């Protein structure tokens, strides 16, 4: 049993059991003197009741040891000083002997009961505090879940509102066909608008930690294919070379997020590299880390831009139009959400090289 602690009662009780016992004995002697003074008027039973009262009071705040000791001392003092014949431990009348025994039993029982009661009380208090803490925790969790749900609902509805008109424009354009040069311009602009909207929504999601990876066993070639697929049109003027994926075992990763991170890098490459050049996508496994290089043969990254490349809305000097300044920030956000990362550098033989790294589980098959 724990020593009963009473955080809520500003108890003046001496801290140590020895201190309690000292005070208890002092109190007993004071009371004994007082009773001695009034003995002629009250008889010797009065002292016993006074002692019992003192024990009850002590029991409400002190430890069990000192209280029980006080009970014993009180009984002896009462016997010695008050029970006739006085100043001996001898008891003459059988009735006094019974009284003395009863005093003992009552005092010890009281001390015992009271301390047990207090222990029970303290445990209850502890239980109550614990409950309160759990309730508060639950409440906090509910609040944050609610905030997240609200955020997602908002994002979903904004997403729906922005994407619907774009879908309408794009479907309608298809009806006209892009033979008309004006329609071709609208087509280009609407693609760009779509990209901006998608990027804005995605960066919001990334920054709100709303990206929850769900890793599953994947073939890396599927991931690369999914990354390239949405950019068939943008990649058409380039030679895209995909290597290394077929030799890799199954890996546990969120293919959709990796593909999305990759496709932003690819899009970036199509904006910077000259048409007709080669874009290399190379995947390899390096001690349970999947590494994917995307190398273009463009002008490379200006040295002063390298540290800022993945910052939101950062656009390197002389960047061609068509980018949102968000793509690379999103890619990094997605990779980091999966405990991976992304780095950029200039290749010694020219062009920029981006490397995605992702710790993965490797299938034993």
């Amino acid at each position, binding site marked *: 049993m724990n020593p009963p602690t009473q955080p809520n009662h500003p108890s003046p009780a001496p801290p140590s059991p020895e201190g309690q016992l000292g005070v208890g004995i002092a109190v007993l002697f004071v009371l004994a003197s007082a009773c001695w003074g009034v003995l002629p008027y009250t008889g010797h039973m009065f002292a016993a009741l006074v002692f019992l009262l003192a024990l009850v009071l002590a029991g409400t705040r002190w430890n069990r040891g000192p209280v029980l000791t006080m009970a014993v001392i009180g009984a002896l003092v009462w016997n010695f000083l008050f029970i006739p014949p006085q100043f001996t431990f001898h008891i003459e009348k059988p009735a006094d002997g019974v009284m003395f025994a009863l005093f003992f039993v009552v005092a010890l029982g009281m001390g015992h009961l009271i301390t047990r009661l207090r222990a029970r009380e303290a445990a209850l208090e502890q239980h109550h505090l614990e409950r309160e803490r759990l309730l508060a925790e639950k409440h906090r969790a509910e609040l944050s879940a609610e905030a997240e749900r609200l955020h997602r609902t908002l994002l979903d509805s904004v997403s729906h509102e922005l994407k619907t008109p774009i879908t*309408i424009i*794009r479907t309608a354009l*298809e009806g006209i066909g892009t033979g008309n040069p004006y329609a071709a311009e609208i087509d280009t602009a609407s693609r760009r608008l779509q990209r901006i909207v998608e990027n804005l929504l995605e960066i919001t999601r990334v920054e709100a930690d709303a990206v929850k990876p769900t890793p*599953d*066993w994947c*073939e890396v070639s599927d991931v690369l*294919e*999914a990354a390239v697929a949405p950019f068939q049109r943008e990649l058409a003027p380039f030679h895209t070379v995909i290597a290394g994926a077929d030799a890799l075992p199954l890996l546990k990763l969120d293919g959709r997020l990796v593909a999305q991170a990759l496709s932003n890098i690819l899009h970036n490459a199509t904006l910077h590299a000259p048409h007709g050049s080669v874009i290399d996508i190379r995947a390899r496994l390096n001690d349970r880390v999947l590494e994917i290089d995307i190398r273009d043969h463009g002008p490379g990254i200006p040295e002063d831009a390298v540290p800022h490349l993945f910052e939101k809305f950062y656009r390197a000097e002389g960047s061609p139009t068509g980018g949102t300044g968000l793509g690379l920030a999103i890619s990094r956000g997605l990779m980091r959400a999966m405990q991976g990362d992304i780095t950029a550098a200039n290749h010694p033989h020219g062009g920029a090289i981006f490397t995605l790294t992702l710790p993965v589980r490797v299938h034993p098959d």
Partner: protein
Amino acid sequence: MGKALIIDDEPQMRRLLRMVLESRGYEVCEADEGLRGLQEAAFHRPDVVLLDLGLPGMGGIETLARLREWSDVPVLVLSVRDQETVKVQALETGADDYVTKPFGSAELLARLEVIQRRRGPRHTPEITAGALKLDLLRHEADLDGEPLRLTPTEFSILSILTEHAGRIVTQNQIVKHVWPVQQSDPAEGLRVHISHLRRKLGDRGVRVVNEPGIGYRLEIRQASAP
């Protein structure tokens, strides 16, 4: 071409879809929300349904579930990107396929055609898709006239994909077909079998395409090399 029912809350979207579908010879009816969509479906008995997942009120999934209580009309779901879980939910509630907004009309019409070409009672134990032929009775498959040596699991996977050739099949649907009694992590085993299956199919006009987060689609290249 048949009757198509459009259930979408955006009037402009409905108008456009109507134009696209009518240009292809479909007879079109519309509804702007789920309940009315169900009524229209009961009244007009369409041959195909286009259902927007982002319906207000009774959402797309709920509409689909209630439609499936009494109808097995082919349903194409219109969704936006980043709704993978909703797409999977729709497919497992009984949608036949989905297109993601913004979609091209060519893609839309092709999907509509694929989901209508299907099902019904089968009277032969053989299914074919392009150059692929499966005999469900003898558990034999051949591609371009050449027999494929498949394990029973691979055959089972290929049979559900072939039966739904050109259509998406969710990972869960494949797993339930192949292992009716659940394994520990069947998705993991599935990936392994599919990677083996792909190697055996090679590059001969039939491909198992993965759609991350959703499932697989058996893609048939129409003009097989002579």
